[in-house]
């Protein structure tokens, strides 16, 4: 068991080669830069369309614009929306301590109501218009941008399977359905998975899940998750979500290069005064040996629903097997003792 070394934990140079793949196909992954995400959900839609992922319910969750909730068997890209009351000074965007005027949203509302309910004789009517709360085409704060800046920011993040260097889901899969591809990604083979569900609690990110639905639902009862568009990769194409992303928030490429790109973007943001920017999943020394899909976040990971310090559960597996062996010996000894230890 000790010979497993980096197969269970720690940095690993070439995941595909360690899984037995010949050749020198570079490891592929995503770098999702949330600082330029606009929350359009094109990634969610493109993923559903390309991969034929069924709906996951048409729910209104009451959590900003997020109505998918979390990654799951039928949500392989998930855009998180976080509305934060946040002092601009904290963000240090170079305008700290400047007067900000009245709180923007209410000021705009008052202005809008006045325009709609005031004297309307110029329009040839003396009826007083009543605001019915229709949305307007005027941008909030458009009349006086300096005076109506709000202490508010909106974080958006397109989450996806991390394609871990040490993937717990793959390690614990008892059928070999989950496997490491030649691109270093982690994929479920739909024709093999028997729906044991073991990968579901094994994932430290809560990504993979067993698909529920009636008998007509595609791949129902099986574990499902992002494949990093294994079929598209095989044809030399970009994964659907990255292809659809209009702001290059989702970048696809070789993991080595993406790590460099992520580091460069981080220092650019730090230089620009966005001190809270941080990378997530980009460090090969972290608890999962680094992710194939890494992120640039503008707040702590748990704000986005990500675990702050995930560790692959199989790191402790050799210790667990040793304890289990010791416990088994204890049980055997207890049984022997029970027969030898008395007269009756």
């Amino acid at each position, binding site marked *: 068991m000790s010979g497993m070394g980096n197969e269970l934990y720690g940095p690993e140079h070439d995941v595909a080669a360690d899984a037995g793949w010949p050749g020198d196909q570079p490891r592929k992954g995503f770098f999702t830069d949330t600082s330029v995400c606009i929350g359009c959900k094109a990634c969610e839609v493109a993923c559903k369309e390309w991969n034929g992922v069924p709906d996951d319910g048409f729910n209104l969750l009451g959590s900003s614009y997020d109505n998918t909730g979390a990654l799951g068997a039928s949500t392989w890209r998930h855009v998180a929306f976080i509305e934060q009351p946040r002092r601009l000074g904290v963000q240090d965007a170079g305008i700290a301590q400047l007067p900000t005027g009245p709180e923007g949203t209410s000021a705009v509302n008052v202005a809008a109501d006045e325009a709609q309910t005031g004297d309307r004789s110029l329009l040839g009517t003396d009826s007083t218009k009543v605001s019915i709360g229709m949305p307007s085409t005027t941008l909030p704060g458009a009349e006086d941008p300096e005076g109506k800046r709000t202490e508010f920011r909106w974080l958006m993040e397109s989450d996806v399977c991390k394609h871990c260097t040490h993937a717990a889901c793959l390690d614990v899969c008892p059928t*070999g359905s989950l496997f490491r591809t030649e691109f270093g990604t982690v994929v479920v083979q739909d024709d*093999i998975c028997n729906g044991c569900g073991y990968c579901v609690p094994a*994932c430290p990110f809560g990504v993979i899940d067993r698909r529920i639905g009636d008998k007509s639902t595609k791949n129902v009862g099986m574990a499902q998750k992002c494949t990093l568009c294994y079929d598209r990769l095989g044809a030399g194409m970009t994964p659907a979500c990255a292809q659809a992303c209009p702001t290059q928030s989702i970048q696809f490429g070789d993991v080595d290069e993406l790590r460099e790109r992520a580091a460069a973007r981080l220092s650019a943001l730090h230089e620009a005064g966005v001190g809270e920017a941080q990378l997530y999943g980009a460090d090969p020394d972290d608890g999962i040996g680094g992710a194939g899909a890494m992120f640039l976040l503008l707040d702590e990971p748990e704000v*986005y629903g990500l*675990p*702050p310090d995930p560790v692959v559960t199989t790191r*402790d*597996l050799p210790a667990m097997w040793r304890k*289990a062996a010791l416990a*088994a010996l204890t049980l055997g000894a207890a049984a022997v003792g029970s027969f030898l230890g008395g007269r009756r």
Partner: protein
Amino acid sequence: MSEQPQPVAADRHTDTGAGRGRLGRRRRGAESVMVPDVEFTSYYGRPVLKAAPWSADIPAYLFLGGLSGGSALLAAGADLTDRPALRRTARLGAASSITASFGLLVHDLGKPSRFVNMLRVAKVTSPMSVGTWILSAYGPLAGLAAAAELRQLVPRRLQPLARLLGFAGRPAGLAAAALGPAVASYTAVLMSDTATPAWHEAHRELPFVFVGSAASAAAGLGMLGAPVTEAGPARRFALVGAAVEIVAERRMESSMGLAAETLHEGTAGTLMRASKALIAAGALGSLVASRSRVVAAVSGAALLGGSACARFGIFHAGQQSARDPKYTVVPQRERLDARNST
């Protein structure tokens, strides 16, 4: 225009657990007695992890698997020390509980028709794969040993078969007993080798809790099914099993950190309290069970019940620890902050 979306403080809610309807269920009493516990941030209070998609099949299997493994040991001992009634009870118990286990495990699959795919590979990194192979070897042996007990039922014209069963009974029973401890202990690794906080953080002691639980369950069955004159080893097995389970469970709770909370609250809390009471009662009863078959049977039933309650309790605690982001975020945040501050 008048309906501009208001900034909602949906994020950065420091989720104290209070006011989210969750703590209300966990702690009896009203708002006034609530103590704000650890502050942490989450995404709309949603779980970070996915709870295992397993039904009651799995904790039931944990119980029956342990019962079977422990019974195989008792059966072998009874066979070698000439205790036919204890041997019969234990062999039949071992075989029927492992048969039921197979049924439960297949039933819990998302694709039951593909259960045989478990045998495509053998992976030491997958406790479920290891367990499949252990069960594949153990099941037929336990079945053969039990069939030897039933050889009188073989029709007269198939007497050679009955004789064959008679010969095979002991070797099969001994081989099953050799695998029994593995059947009883691997399930602890199965549960611990997950990101589910209450299961993973219990990984140092859970195998001992499980083998203790297996011993008390098997001993309970032996005390129920065998006359008191033969059940001496079962009574001693019960005492040792109960002691191991209670001590290991206590140590587990003190080493698993925040997630230990889940063993005291809600369904899991009720089950764990019931388990401790039943195990203690059964163990005490086993001290005097040599005098009365009734006391032996009641004690045996209490031990079986206590073992089952522990398995279901630990199962539910794990599920709750996965559903509440607190058990994921708080320990990880503490770990991260400690690392960053050094």
